[in-house]
């Protein structure tokens, strides 16, 4: 299939954007200016100011002199790029590959191979794009051609028709000036000096001659326009292999409508995934609103799934986050991450069902979908005596523990996240406390076990060791106390309560 490209040129990108934001500027000439070597230089010009012969690159003071009453606005570096990115994302509705025109930073290039017929032919397609941007307040010129270079040239310098027929781009380029080739200013000046005013006058010259005089880049640009060199486009968004779109006739505003849209998209997507034996791990639903804003909700699963009901439930939990505004006209569902689905083996006898159970996994998907994945924890034992490190978080629900939980030493059912200091009366050197004061309450120790010394793992963190005691007070409450460090005049020691036994 012959590749086709559209180049969209926003003739007054910055000033159109400013007028959309501040409609009162429509009647006033204004320029954008940025500081350069201690003076303000004009960077962009509104159509009214351009009528007074104000051009980009002249000092702002000159512009004020030529055109009295001109309003000078501050320009910010990178604003055009940001604007184009937003406009480009909007254009994804027209074609999957949209890239920013990096040469002049005032246009977009779309690869529209096989897209035009969906909109009723190239003419209707181009008209639709122009009228859509006109409605938003942007003046655009665009052209459709076989190469990005030719489309760019015709959109800026073409005078006949924006539709360059298949194979006709070489002929069309012949009469255009060399500026249409996207080349640097000094080479342009050289071409003008040599009397090349049209592309056809140097198009068929030997390459070696052109290379010697104008350099390699010139040849590349010429080749790209003529289609002899390839021009890869830097897509704003990489097309995702598993993506479904649903354009709706009437903008959707209601929850029920969104739910129906999600179900329809999921049905198609899950069928495709199922055919390839894949399942969704993370997905994102994008709604294109009619005010050209995007609304998105994302879901994730613990194991790959292509079950419509399960995935729908995950989306359902987040529907409240969608702000439909005036309405959503296009829904897009992307499977960002897909994994092969593990088909569970039918077991003759199931000794340990465990957590690897479809309904449990779906429950955890729903919980982590609503509360965030950080809310769900599972612990496996670690080879550490230090209580804070004796268990670690498992990375997944199916991760197996490498060792058994140790039961040889008493461990409290409740552990304080941070040990709390207590006052203690104890016999030295290693007797358990006689009594202790915790939160202002006296506890008479009746029974005690210990000490159990736990050395600090010096290769992980420095500090004192701990001598743990399990004590029971007169009312039967059981505590886990420890003394940090040795007794001694030179060293400091401190007693703490660290946990509560059942």
């Amino acid at each position, binding site marked *: 299939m012959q590749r086709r490209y559209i180049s969209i040129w926003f003739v007054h990108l910055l000033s159109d954007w400013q007028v959309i934001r501040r409609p009162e500027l429509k009647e006033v000439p204004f320029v954008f200016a940025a500081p350069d070597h201690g003076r303000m230089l004009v960077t962009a010009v509104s159509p009214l100011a351009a009528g007074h012969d104000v051009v980009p690159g002249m000092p702002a003071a000159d512009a004020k002199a030529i055109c009295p009453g001109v309003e000078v606005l501050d320009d910010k570096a990178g604003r055009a790029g940001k604007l184009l990115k937003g406009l480009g994302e909007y254009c994804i509705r027209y074609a999957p590959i949209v890239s920013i025109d990096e040469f002049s930073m005032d246009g977009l290039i779309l690869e529209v191979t096989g897209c035009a017929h969906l909109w009723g032919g190239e003419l209707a397609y181009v008209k639709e794009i122009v009228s859509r941007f006109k409605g938003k307040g942007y003046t655009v010129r665009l052209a459709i051609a076989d190469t990005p270079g030719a489309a760019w040239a015709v959109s800026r310098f073409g005078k006949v028709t924006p539709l360059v027929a298949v194979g006709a781009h070489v002929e069309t380029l012949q009469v255009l000036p060399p500026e249409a080739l996207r080349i640097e200013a000094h080479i342009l000046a050289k071409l003008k000096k040599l009397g090349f005013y049209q592309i056809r006058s140097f198009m068929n010259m030997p390459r070696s001659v052109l290379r010697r005089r104008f350099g390699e880049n010139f040849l590349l640009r010429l080749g790209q326009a003529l289609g002899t060199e390839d021009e890869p486009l830097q897509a704003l968004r990489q097309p995702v292999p598993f993506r479904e779109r649903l354009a709706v006739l009437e903008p959707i505003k209601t929850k029920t409508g969104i739910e129906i849209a999600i179900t329809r998209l999921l049905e198609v997507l899950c069928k495709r995934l199922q055919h390839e034996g894949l399942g969704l791990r993370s997905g994102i639903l994008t709604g294109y609103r009619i005010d050209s804003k995007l609304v998105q909700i994302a879901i994730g699963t613990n194991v790959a799934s292509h079950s419509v009901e399960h995935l729908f439930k995950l989306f359902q939990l987040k529907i409240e986050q969608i702000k439909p505004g005036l309405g959503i006209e296009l829904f897009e569902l992307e499977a960002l991450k897909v994994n092969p689905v593990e088909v569970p083996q039918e077991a003759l006898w199931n000794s340990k069902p*465990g957590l690897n159970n479809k309904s*449990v996994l779906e429950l955890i998907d729903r919980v982590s979908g609503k*509360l965030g994945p950080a809310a769900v924890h599972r612990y496996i034992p670690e080879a550490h005596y230090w209580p804070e490190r004796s268990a670690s978080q498992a990375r997944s629900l199916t991760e197996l523990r490498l060792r058994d*939980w140790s039961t040889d030493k008493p*461990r*409290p059912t409740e552990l304080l996240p941070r040990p709390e200091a207590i006052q203690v009366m104890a016999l030295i050197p290693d007797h358990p406390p006689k009594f202790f004061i915790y939160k202002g309450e006296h506890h008479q120790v009746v*029974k005690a076990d210990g000490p159990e010394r736990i050395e600090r793992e010096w290769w992980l963190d420095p500090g004192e060791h701990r001598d743990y005691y*399990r004590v029971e007070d007169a*009312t039967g409450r059981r505590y886990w106390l420890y003394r940090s460090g040795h007794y001694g005049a030179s060293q400091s020691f401190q007693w703490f309560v660290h946990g509560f036994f059942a």
Partner: protein
Amino acid sequence: METKLEMLNKLRQDMLLWQGFKPAEGEVAARVGLGEIEAAFPGGVFPRKGIHEFICETPDQVAATDGFVAGLLSVLMAEGTGCVWISTSRRLFPPSLAAFNVETDQIIFVDVRSDREALWVMEEALRCDGLAAVVAEVDGLSLVESRRLQLAVERQGIPGLIIRKDPQKLVAGVSTARWKIAPLPSGDEDGMPGVGFPRWQVQLLKVRSGNPGSWTLEWEADRFLQVTKEQVPFQTVHEKVG
């Protein structure tokens, strides 16, 4: 000819049926290892299709309740099924559950910010059919919320255990049983020094169609053991020690 005892038993069974308690069909009435306490429940069986509330009046009762619940879980999770433990402020130390024969790595801990979220997770978990039990630590529980949980429990038959840390917010609920677990001084085995097995005063404050009561229970290595009166040292539970 039926004897009087048989007739009485049959009448008791019928009454339970009329009250909505159906004996599990084709299923052996599984014990949970609570010994005599199980006799307090209707039909002498620990109701698995029920919400069990554990009231904790003081922070030290929370630790005791955790231990008692862990003991229950060891039986409920014996078949290898998982459990969900929901909490707003969790201090439970996972490695300690091994002492109660619980496979801690089969427990999924869900840490939430509010009671509302905790109850949502609990209801979702109770409707899920691959779990052995659902435990939630919450402050308050309204009548409507407990009714919703009870309905969810009756559908799947997974016991829901609720540890309530704020007795101020106690209101009437529809839970099957309401417990209170308080720590007791451990018994000294043949005059040996040191702390003995964990011992609790287990109170059943409320049982639907059952008999409330109070027992002294001990966790001995791997099972609950009831302590007879003679072994209990002279001590009243409600004594206030300053």
